[in-house]
């Protein structure tokens, strides 16, 4: 596990917390816990998630 950096929402000046967000691709909806601003809902997706699980999911949905 990589150490989680301290991430701050630059607008609300609060620390991001793990919360569910909803995603959509090719008509399929998914929910996943990601760091989010507890006030405004801004999400943060780290590169490891984007190039890892998200890319795999994109490819899987394109061949479903």
């Amino acid at each position, binding site marked *: 596990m990589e150490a989680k950096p301290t*991430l701050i929402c630059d607008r609300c000046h609060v620390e991001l917390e793990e919360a569910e967000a909803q*995603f959509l691709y090719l008509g399929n909806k998914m929910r996943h816990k990601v760091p989010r601003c507890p006030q405004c809902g801004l999400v943060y997706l780290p590169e490891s998630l984007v190039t890892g699980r998200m890319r795999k999911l*994109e490819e899987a949905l394109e*061949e479903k």
Partner: protein
Amino acid sequence: MDQFLKQFDQCRQWEKPFCTATCPFHMDVLDFQEKMARGSYNAAFKTFRNAVAFPDIVAALCPEYCASSCPRKDLDQAVQLNLLEKTCVAKATKKDPTDYNVPIKNRKIAVVGGGMSGLACALRLSSKKYDVSLYEKTDRLGGRLWELLPPALFLEDVRRQFQFENYSLHLNTEVLNIKELVAQGFEAIYIATGKGGSDFGVLGEGYVPYRLDKKTALFLGGSLLEKDPIHSIADGLDMAWAIEIYLKTGKMEYPIFSSETKAAISKDRLQTLAAIVPSNDGIFTDKESLAEASRCIRCQCDSCRTDCDLSAFYKKWPLKMRDEIMSTVSPSDSILHGTPAIRLINTCTDCRLFEESCPADIKFCEMLREARLRLHNLGKMPGAYHQFWLADMEHANGEFAALVKTPPHETQSNYAFFPGCQLGATDPRYVSETYRYLLSKDPQTGLLLRCCGVPAAWSGNEKRHAAEIASLKNDWERLGCPTLIIACPSCARELKEQLPEVATISLYEILSQGEPLWGNSKIQKKQDCLYSIFDPCSAKQQENFQTGVRELVSQCGIAIEELPNGDHHGCCGFGGHAKIANPAFGDYVAKQRSGLSENPYITYCINCRDIFYEERKPALHVLDLLFDLNEETGALPNLSERRKNRVQLKESLLTELWEEKMEAIPETPKTKLILTAEIQQKMNEQKLLEEDIINVLEFADSTGRRIFDQEKKTYTAFRELGYITCWVEYRPVQEGFEILNVYTHRITIELEMIWNGSKTDFDLR
């Protein structure tokens, strides 16, 4: 799509190989050889036994009919299948048949004659648990086998194969009148009374070897019909099949032996391999049988499998791909609906090699192009696949890059140079130098800078494609309908198909005409090297491109060695814009094409040259030679620079040749980016422009939507850019923004809906 489905009726994938077609038993030789080649004698024996019923007898008697049809026979020597059969029979350790637990069927069948044909029929039917009675007039089974083989061999084989079967054997019982058997209630009778035996009047005048007597089906076969021993056994098995069909359906079908097959093999699969001589008493050793089985090239129509990059990369046969494609483009309410081939459809490079290879004339590339249209119309085309190239086309056809000009100081053009949209993007000099040269030869030559519209076709957007074609036609008409001098073979193919009324000529054909004037230091330097000409896939059947380039290279005094298969190869990986949908495929194809020859390439499609540059395969565009431009290797401009190159090309040509000032000039962005080479590489891979990054940063700045990393002291921001979401990690510095990381995804974050104001539901928080 229906017309393509129909074409697939002719697909020869399942055609029998030549040997199987000639074999009286139609043995699955591919399966047998595959098992022999891995030394699985028991498994191979099973395949053999299932086909021939009596493996020891057939291995001993088979005269190898298949040798006459083996494609090896004209090269070295046909594969020695009979020796492999003998080896298999000698080495198999599990030779007993399987005792299947099949329900007994109370259907009475008589077999008249206990020779090899009758035995084969009786064995096959009794193993399926029919009530079989075998009548033999002598006191022993085997008929002619007593004259051909040692009794111990065939009697043991007969005993072994019948060991689990129950049937009534009537020795010393000569059937004199077939009516007696009919009266006994037999539903079918196989008459195999041997050479000179009675046909009980079935043959009659018409010599038809079957007849229905009341409700009893009578079939004839074996040496009664003057068949040789092997065909007699095969007859027995075939009649067992015919009898079963009759019992199940009431139809009389007499199997007709056909050795026809439409199988096709590409000749280059055949390499000379001397036949193996068995060292041990006519039987191969393990090593020898493996070597002999490996001489078999497993004849099957498979040029598509090896030639078509899609088929080779996905390891899928076209028939399988057809089914996946049809399912993907069927409407959502269809029971066939699924989307297994969205990516596959967008992975085709449109190289048309399949059409060239397929002996059944299946237009697979066309089918895939049509599938893209369907996918788009059904709303199932992932926008991210084609977004970048559509925007690139828009740029090439937009006010900053497109140019439609009659020649300087002229109002009419006889010819117009149409270099395509990528040549000037890679290096503006390709276009400017060539155009100057063309003007010096014919001052009536106009210029048309724009895209041919093929990206719209590849994106499946029919409407947009039609609009691009109409706009291209309009530009051409504005120039006075000149003959277009085409540099890019892809544009040439597109124009031929979409605007056949436009007269075109290959740039290279024009350049190669007249007195050759090519002489510069680069050419002199290259005269010592040996090159291969890499014909772009779109230059297939465009002889004027192929010969023009060869003529030019020869005029330069440069030696060439043709590629082993000439132009019979696929795309470099640029075609169809497949690389975005499937990056691994793009790499695979680029590697395949780079490896066609050790020689450096000379090509005449800038996309091919750029891809070889990326692969570090030394390659020149033929214009590099003629106008002393780039070397075989070097750095490529990044995507932002490519667009700048187009603008610069237009601007410089307008100023220098037409003495005009460019009206619209793109704004210089206020935000300054500091990009390392690594980041630029990443941006290139993800098809991101500097303006995209600036877009994300400005959005973050205006909305305050960014995340601050307290440890690294960096910001991360994202924004949806069309169908992709772009993330940028950066650090503001005095000179601008230091970009630390960029990444993109296609999945959309639903939160965006809230931010953009189109949704007021805050339940996602």
